[in-house]
């Protein structure tokens, strides 16, 4: 599979159709991979595809990351099903045109939950929970797919299963749940890794970085931290495609994607909208439809 992908990448880089292929390469230790920008056709040999490929690479397609995008006209990108969902969402939000990208899709069995759990292969013991019931193991869209055309896949089942630990959280007493977040947020030092890894954080200047006016306290005290995480979660409502990168990237393991997972359920229930499946359909909170539910207006 990987050879086929490398050959196609090489062909398109040599022909000049693509300026760059964004993919995964072996990382600095054996349990990790790292994003790589392949410009030289010879370097396609560095591309790898396996259970360690945790990063959501479409973040590099977001216009906010001006560099290294500078000068790229057509970008190749290696994507898991969930990454391609993020690309679709970027297109739906006019952050990207479909003809600006060439998508290398591949069937994905899931990714590892944490590098410490990697033992050379992916198995029931180390697979990330977001992967266990994934409906895009066969991606929704791809220009290249190993073995030829992208097969149709049944996506009628549940989408982006809400993790059991998030459901447990929702069942807690309100005060216990609040205590859980208070303790978690005590660890937050506002490094904004959750923002930087997100393919859908699109603002050139984030609201938390704005000082005139100063909407959110920048310091990592309780107020500033709560304000930041609530704002981040709300700005992603109906847009988050559930890659879980925010939680993975958090250096102090605050499970911030729990908010996003919960809001995903709310949006699906309220608007029957699934983010990342249609390039045409706009996220419900940035559009208006006459048949939108109104029962929340009292």
């Amino acid at each position, binding site marked *: 599979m990987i050879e086929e992908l490398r050959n196609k990448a090489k062909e398109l880089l040599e022909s000049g159709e693509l300026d760059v292929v964004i993919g995964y390469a072996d*990382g*600095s*230790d*054996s*349990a990790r991979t*790292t*994003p*790589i*920008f392949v410009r*030289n056709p010879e370097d396609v040999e560095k591309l790898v595809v396996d259970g360690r490929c945790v*990063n959501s690479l479409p*973040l590099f397609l977001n216009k906010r*990351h001006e*560099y*290294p995008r500078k000068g790229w006209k057509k970008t190749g990108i290696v994507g898991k099903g969930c990454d391609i969902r993020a690309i679709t969402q970027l297109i739906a939000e006019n952050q990207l045109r479909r003809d600006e990208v060439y998508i290398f899709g591949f069937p994905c069995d899931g990714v590892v*939950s*944490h590098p*410490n759990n990697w033992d050379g292969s992916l198995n029931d013991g180390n*697979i*990330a*929970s*977001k992967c*266990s019931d994934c409906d895009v193991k066969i991606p929704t869209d791809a220009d290249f797919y190993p073995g030829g055309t992208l097969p149709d896949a049944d996506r009628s089942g549940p989408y982006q299963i809400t*993790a*059991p*630990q*998030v459901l*447990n*959280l929702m069942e807690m007493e309100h005060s216990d749940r609040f205590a*859980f977040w208070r*303790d*978690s947020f005590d*660890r937050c*030092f*506002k*490094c*904004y*890794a959750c*923002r*930087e*890894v997100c393919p859908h954080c699109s603002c050139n*200047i984030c609201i938390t*970085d704005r*000082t005139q006016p*100063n909407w959110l*306290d*920048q*310091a*990592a*005290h309780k107020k*500033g931290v709560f304000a930041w995480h609530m704002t981040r979660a709300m700005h992603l409502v109906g847009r988050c495609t559930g890659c879980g*990168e925010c*939680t*993975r*990237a958090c*250096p*102090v*393991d605050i*499970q911030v994607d*729990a908010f996003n997972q919960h809001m995903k359920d709310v949006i699906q229930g309220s608007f029957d909208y699934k983010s990342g499946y249609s390039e045409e359909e706009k996220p419900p909170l940035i559009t208006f439809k006459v048949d939108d539910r109104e029962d929340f207006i009292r």
Partner: protein
Amino acid sequence: MKTATINKSDIDKCIDLLSQADYRVIAPRMQPRLDGPDAIDVQVFQEIQPGEEHAIGNDLATTGIKEFLFVKHEPLFAFEQRGKKVEITPVSHDFPKTVMIGVRPCDAASVRSLDNVFSASNVGYNDELFTKRLEQTSFITYSCTDPDASCFCTSVGLAPDSDRGSDLHMTEIDGDRIHIEVKTETGEVLAQLLEPLFQGEGDAAARKKAGEEVFAKISRIRDSNPIRAWLDDTANFDDEMWQRLGEKCLGCGACTFECPTCHCFDIVDENRGGKGYRVKFWDGCQFDHFTLHASGHNPRDWQYKRYRNRFTCKFKIYQEKFEAQGCVGCGRCIRGCPVNLDITEYMAEVAQKATAPNAVTSD
């Protein structure tokens, strides 16, 4: 130098004795988490009461001890606007007598680096909020037993059993005993408190052997010696390496905030309706607005230049300006990086370029 041994199972009693002597005890502690397949162990330093669970002797804590000395946010004073006048009110800061226990050698070594910044005698600056806290704080360090793949302290002149910055140094010598060394006068005071637990003289030979065994476990070894001279050569400021290795950097602050020696901060007025606080809080050179000028010009306009600054700070600026060690090799910036940007890859490449200046590197 006074030595002693205690039973490892008596660590809890150490905490009891220190607390009884009115010390605020800071120790690593496991964090509550949502149970699930993705749950990972997170351990941070927190104030701990006698009888509470701690994680002394576990893996290196996820974050270091700097937030107890260089607090991640603190008010400097309160203000309130009254007509055309602004009234300033001081805020009180307390500097409790503190002992940190279970501090790893890399973290302990970093305290001296921070101290050189915040009480930089060569620039005539003294940050009292830091130095007064440090005066009240003593360190009981604990040699590492199980370094992981990201640890690289031996590449920057430290070791898993280094006692730099330590007042009282503990080393596990066999499964259930701890060798204790008194390193300073403050350590002597602590040792007197812990004396009821002492099981006789220390075992220097066993302690040396334990240190050597752990030293050999460190797998990530780089030569940091040639780095300073290479960075001093201004021609290397525009080396192609910076761009090639650094272009994947996302510009989050995970590495700087987890780093035990990163010390940058910002000061803002948190103003709500004419009153509020002037607050000092952590800032990091990896953020795009860190060097953004009011004119709109940004001298570090692309992310790879910001990482170049981070690397240069650790291996040149720190030594030049503060006569201190910039990097202590704890490896947190490697573990915590979302894109596996690895400072030791820079170290290896610089060492290679420095020793073989004409060598052609692949692009």
